[in-house]
Protein backbone atom coordinates (compact mmCIF):
# COMPACT_ATOMS: atom_id res chain seq x y z
CA UNK A 1 0.00 0.00 0.00
CA UNK A 2 1.47 3.31 -1.02
CA UNK A 3 1.71 5.72 1.88
CA UNK A 4 2.61 9.35 1.84
CA UNK A 5 5.30 10.41 4.26
CA UNK A 6 5.35 13.56 6.36
CA UNK A 7 8.73 14.43 7.85
CA UNK A 8 9.23 15.28 11.48
CA UNK A 9 10.50 14.08 14.84
CA UNK A 10 10.79 10.31 15.14
CA UNK A 11 8.06 9.05 17.49
CA UNK A 12 8.01 5.42 16.39
CA UNK A 13 5.98 4.03 13.53
CA UNK A 14 2.96 6.28 13.10
CA UNK A 15 0.40 5.45 10.42
CA UNK A 16 -2.80 7.36 9.75
CA UNK A 17 -5.61 5.72 7.77
CA UNK A 18 -7.84 8.52 6.56
CA UNK A 19 -10.43 9.55 3.98
CA UNK A 20 -9.73 12.54 1.76
CA UNK A 21 -13.27 13.86 2.31
CA UNK A 22 -13.54 13.48 6.08
CA UNK A 23 -13.35 16.49 8.39
CA UNK A 24 -12.04 14.65 11.47
CA UNK A 25 -9.36 12.96 9.36
CA UNK A 26 -8.21 16.41 8.26
CA UNK A 27 -8.09 17.60 11.87
CA UNK A 28 -6.12 14.52 12.93
CA UNK A 29 -3.57 15.04 10.17
CA UNK A 30 -3.32 18.72 11.10
CA UNK A 31 -2.68 17.82 14.74
CA UNK A 32 0.09 15.36 13.85
CA UNK A 33 1.72 18.07 11.77
CA UNK A 34 1.32 20.56 14.61
CA UNK A 35 3.02 18.09 16.96
CA UNK A 36 5.85 17.89 14.44
CA UNK A 37 6.16 14.11 14.40
CA UNK A 38 7.03 11.98 11.40
CA UNK A 39 4.16 9.88 10.06
CA UNK A 40 2.79 8.06 7.05
CA UNK A 41 -0.77 8.45 5.86
CA UNK A 42 -3.04 6.99 3.22
CA UNK A 43 -6.37 8.22 1.88
CA UNK A 44 -8.19 4.91 1.62
CA UNK A 45 -10.99 6.33 -0.54
CA UNK A 46 -8.46 7.14 -3.27
CA UNK A 47 -6.93 3.64 -3.47
CA UNK A 48 -7.64 1.26 -6.35
CA UNK A 49 -10.16 -1.47 -5.32
CA UNK A 50 -7.66 -4.19 -4.49
CA UNK A 51 -5.47 -1.96 -2.36
CA UNK A 52 -8.60 -0.59 -0.73
CA UNK A 53 -9.55 -4.13 0.33
CA UNK A 54 -6.09 -4.66 1.83
CA UNK A 55 -6.27 -1.36 3.67
CA UNK A 56 -9.70 -2.17 5.09
CA UNK A 57 -8.51 -5.59 6.25
CA UNK A 58 -5.54 -3.97 8.01
CA UNK A 59 -7.71 -1.33 9.67
CA UNK A 60 -10.27 -3.89 10.82
CA UNK A 61 -7.53 -5.83 12.61
CA UNK A 62 -7.05 -2.90 14.96
CA UNK A 63 -10.46 -1.25 14.71
CA UNK A 64 -13.24 -3.74 13.97
CA UNK A 65 -15.65 -0.93 13.08
CA UNK A 66 -13.35 -0.06 10.17
CA UNK A 67 -13.93 3.64 10.78
CA UNK A 68 -11.84 6.71 10.01
CA UNK A 69 -9.54 8.22 11.09
CA UNK A 70 -7.65 5.23 12.49
CA UNK A 71 -4.24 6.12 13.88
CA UNK A 72 -1.88 3.22 14.42
CA UNK A 73 1.22 3.63 16.56
CA UNK A 74 3.99 1.01 16.48
CA UNK A 75 1.60 -1.59 15.03
CA UNK A 76 -0.14 -1.97 18.36
CA UNK A 77 -1.66 1.17 19.85
CA UNK A 78 -4.69 2.48 18.06
CA UNK A 79 -6.56 5.76 18.42
CA UNK A 80 -9.92 5.87 16.67
CA UNK A 81 -11.38 9.22 15.72
CA UNK A 82 -10.08 12.70 16.39
CA UNK A 83 -9.36 12.29 20.09
CA UNK A 84 -7.15 15.27 20.59
CA UNK A 85 -6.14 14.65 24.20
CA UNK A 86 -5.28 11.02 23.52
CA UNK A 87 -3.25 11.88 20.46
CA UNK A 88 -1.35 14.60 22.31
CA UNK A 89 -0.87 12.20 25.22
CA UNK A 90 0.52 9.47 22.97
CA UNK A 91 3.23 11.83 21.78
CA UNK A 92 3.99 13.33 25.16
CA UNK A 93 2.54 16.77 24.52
Amino acid at each position, binding site marked *: MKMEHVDGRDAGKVVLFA*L*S*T*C*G*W*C*GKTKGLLKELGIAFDFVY*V*DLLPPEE*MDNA*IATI*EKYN*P*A*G*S*FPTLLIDDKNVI*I*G*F*REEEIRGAFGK
Partner: protein
Amino acid sequence: MTTADISDDDVEKQFQVLDSEARSGGYHLNPDLEFTKKLVHGLLVNESRYGYPACPCRLSRSIKAEDLDIICPCNYRDPDLDQYGACYCALYVSDAILSKKKSLIPVPDRRPPRSERNSRKTIHTISSGSLSYPVWRCRVCGYLCAREEAPLVCPVCKAKKERFERFM
Protein backbone atom coordinates in the same frame (compact mmCIF):
# COMPACT_ATOMS: atom_id res chain seq x y z
CA MET B 1 -15.58 15.06 -12.29
CA THR B 2 -12.47 15.22 -10.12
CA THR B 3 -11.95 16.99 -6.83
CA ALA B 4 -10.32 19.85 -8.68
CA ASP B 5 -13.49 20.43 -10.71
CA ILE B 6 -15.49 21.37 -7.65
CA SER B 7 -15.20 25.10 -7.24
CA ASP B 8 -15.69 27.26 -4.16
CA ASP B 9 -18.77 28.53 -5.88
CA ASP B 10 -20.24 25.00 -6.14
CA VAL B 11 -19.52 24.47 -2.46
CA GLU B 12 -21.11 27.78 -1.52
CA LYS B 13 -24.27 27.00 -3.51
CA GLN B 14 -24.62 23.53 -2.03
CA PHE B 15 -23.95 24.92 1.43
CA GLN B 16 -26.85 27.37 0.97
CA VAL B 17 -29.16 24.55 -0.19
CA LEU B 18 -28.26 22.31 2.76
CA ASP B 19 -28.48 25.19 5.20
CA SER B 20 -31.98 26.16 4.12
CA GLU B 21 -33.14 22.51 4.04
CA ALA B 22 -31.73 22.03 7.51
CA ARG B 23 -33.46 25.09 8.88
CA SER B 24 -36.79 24.17 7.35
CA GLY B 25 -36.67 20.77 9.07
CA GLY B 26 -35.48 22.13 12.42
CA TYR B 27 -31.86 21.00 11.99
CA HIS B 28 -28.67 23.07 12.11
CA LEU B 29 -25.45 22.91 10.17
CA ASN B 30 -22.24 23.19 12.18
CA PRO B 31 -21.53 26.93 12.71
CA ASP B 32 -17.79 26.30 12.12
CA LEU B 33 -18.04 27.38 8.49
CA GLU B 34 -14.56 26.37 7.41
CA PHE B 35 -15.05 22.84 8.74
CA THR B 36 -18.61 22.60 7.42
CA LYS B 37 -17.68 23.74 3.92
CA LYS B 38 -14.96 21.10 3.75
CA LEU B 39 -17.62 18.50 4.46
CA VAL B 40 -19.92 20.01 1.84
CA HIS B 41 -17.00 19.79 -0.59
CA GLY B 42 -16.61 16.13 0.42
CA LEU B 43 -20.30 15.49 -0.25
CA LEU B 44 -19.97 17.01 -3.72
CA VAL B 45 -16.87 14.90 -4.39
CA ASN B 46 -18.77 11.77 -3.37
CA GLU B 47 -21.80 12.73 -5.43
CA SER B 48 -19.58 13.05 -8.50
CA ARG B 49 -17.66 9.85 -7.74
CA TYR B 50 -20.52 7.57 -6.81
CA GLY B 51 -23.62 9.33 -8.12
CA TYR B 52 -24.99 9.93 -4.63
CA PRO B 53 -23.77 12.01 -1.70
CA ALA B 54 -22.32 9.26 0.49
CA CYS B 55 -21.19 10.33 3.96
CA PRO B 56 -17.80 12.07 3.66
CA CYS B 57 -16.51 10.40 6.85
CA ARG B 58 -17.35 6.83 5.86
CA LEU B 59 -15.90 4.66 3.13
CA SER B 60 -18.19 3.97 0.21
CA ARG B 61 -17.65 1.02 -2.10
CA SER B 62 -19.74 2.68 -4.74
CA ILE B 63 -22.64 0.23 -4.44
CA LYS B 64 -25.74 2.28 -3.84
CA ALA B 65 -27.86 -0.53 -2.42
CA GLU B 66 -25.23 -1.09 0.28
CA ASP B 67 -24.84 2.59 0.98
CA LEU B 68 -28.48 3.66 1.34
CA ASP B 69 -28.01 4.06 5.09
CA ILE B 70 -25.06 6.44 4.65
CA ILE B 71 -26.43 8.72 1.96
CA CYS B 72 -26.40 12.12 3.61
CA PRO B 73 -28.38 12.75 5.77
CA CYS B 74 -27.64 9.23 7.01
CA ASN B 75 -29.92 6.98 9.04
CA TYR B 76 -27.69 7.59 12.09
CA ARG B 77 -27.85 11.37 12.18
CA ASP B 78 -30.87 11.82 14.42
CA PRO B 79 -29.91 9.32 17.14
CA ASP B 80 -26.38 10.80 17.13
CA LEU B 81 -27.78 14.32 17.43
CA ASP B 82 -29.84 13.14 20.41
CA GLN B 83 -27.01 11.31 22.11
CA TYR B 84 -23.91 13.34 21.19
CA GLY B 85 -25.23 16.64 19.90
CA ALA B 86 -23.73 16.10 16.46
CA CYS B 87 -23.86 13.68 13.56
CA TYR B 88 -20.84 11.43 13.04
CA CYS B 89 -19.15 13.95 10.72
CA ALA B 90 -20.37 16.96 12.75
CA LEU B 91 -21.99 18.45 9.67
CA TYR B 92 -25.19 18.71 11.70
CA VAL B 93 -25.27 19.85 15.32
CA SER B 94 -27.95 20.12 18.01
CA ASP B 95 -29.41 23.28 19.55
CA ALA B 96 -27.25 22.76 22.62
CA ILE B 97 -24.05 22.72 20.57
CA LEU B 98 -25.20 25.66 18.50
CA SER B 99 -25.88 27.75 21.58
CA LYS B 100 -22.56 26.56 23.08
CA LYS B 101 -24.26 24.96 26.07
CA LYS B 102 -22.45 21.76 25.14
CA SER B 103 -19.20 21.22 23.28
CA LEU B 104 -18.48 18.78 20.51
CA ILE B 105 -17.13 15.39 21.48
CA PRO B 106 -16.00 12.61 19.14
CA VAL B 107 -18.97 10.54 17.97
CA PRO B 108 -18.34 6.80 17.62
CA ASP B 109 -19.67 5.30 14.38
CA ARG B 110 -23.17 3.98 14.95
CA ARG B 111 -23.16 2.18 11.59
CA PRO B 112 -22.76 -1.56 12.21
CA PRO B 113 -19.39 -3.00 11.12
CA ARG B 114 -19.22 -4.63 7.68
CA SER B 115 -19.60 -8.13 9.09
CA GLU B 116 -22.98 -7.28 10.65
CA ARG B 117 -24.40 -5.06 7.98
CA ASN B 118 -25.77 -7.77 5.74
CA SER B 119 -28.05 -9.03 8.42
CA ARG B 120 -29.43 -5.52 8.82
CA LYS B 121 -32.80 -5.89 10.37
CA THR B 122 -35.79 -4.62 8.57
CA ILE B 123 -38.47 -3.24 10.78
CA HIS B 124 -41.26 -5.35 11.73
CA THR B 125 -44.34 -4.39 9.90
CA ILE B 126 -47.46 -4.38 11.96
CA SER B 127 -50.09 -5.92 9.82
CA SER B 128 -53.31 -4.08 10.02
CA GLY B 129 -55.69 -5.13 7.37
CA SER B 130 -58.17 -2.60 8.58
CA LEU B 131 -56.10 0.41 7.52
CA SER B 132 -57.28 2.10 4.37
CA TYR B 133 -53.71 3.12 3.43
CA PRO B 134 -50.26 1.67 4.01
CA VAL B 135 -48.07 3.71 6.39
CA TRP B 136 -44.53 4.65 5.28
CA ARG B 137 -41.69 5.59 7.58
CA CYS B 138 -38.68 7.73 6.71
CA ARG B 139 -35.60 5.84 7.87
CA VAL B 140 -33.71 9.10 8.34
CA CYS B 141 -36.03 11.09 10.58
CA GLY B 142 -38.94 8.79 11.44
CA TYR B 143 -41.61 10.83 9.62
CA LEU B 144 -44.73 8.74 9.01
CA CYS B 145 -47.36 9.15 6.36
CA ALA B 146 -50.35 7.15 5.24
CA ARG B 147 -50.72 7.08 1.45
CA GLU B 148 -50.48 4.62 -1.44
CA GLU B 149 -46.80 5.35 -1.98
CA ALA B 150 -44.03 6.98 0.01
CA PRO B 151 -43.48 10.65 -0.93
CA LEU B 152 -40.73 11.51 -3.45
CA VAL B 153 -38.98 13.60 -0.83
CA CYS B 154 -39.43 13.54 2.93
CA PRO B 155 -41.03 16.85 3.93
CA VAL B 156 -39.05 16.96 7.19
CA CYS B 157 -35.51 15.86 6.35
CA LYS B 158 -35.56 15.90 2.51
CA ALA B 159 -34.47 12.27 2.22
CA LYS B 160 -35.54 10.69 -1.06
CA LYS B 161 -38.29 8.13 -1.56
CA GLU B 162 -35.81 5.22 -1.57
CA ARG B 163 -35.11 5.90 2.12
CA PHE B 164 -38.68 5.07 3.16
CA GLU B 165 -39.80 1.69 4.48
CA ARG B 166 -43.24 0.21 4.92
CA PHE B 167 -44.23 0.64 8.56
CA MET B 168 -47.83 -0.57 8.72
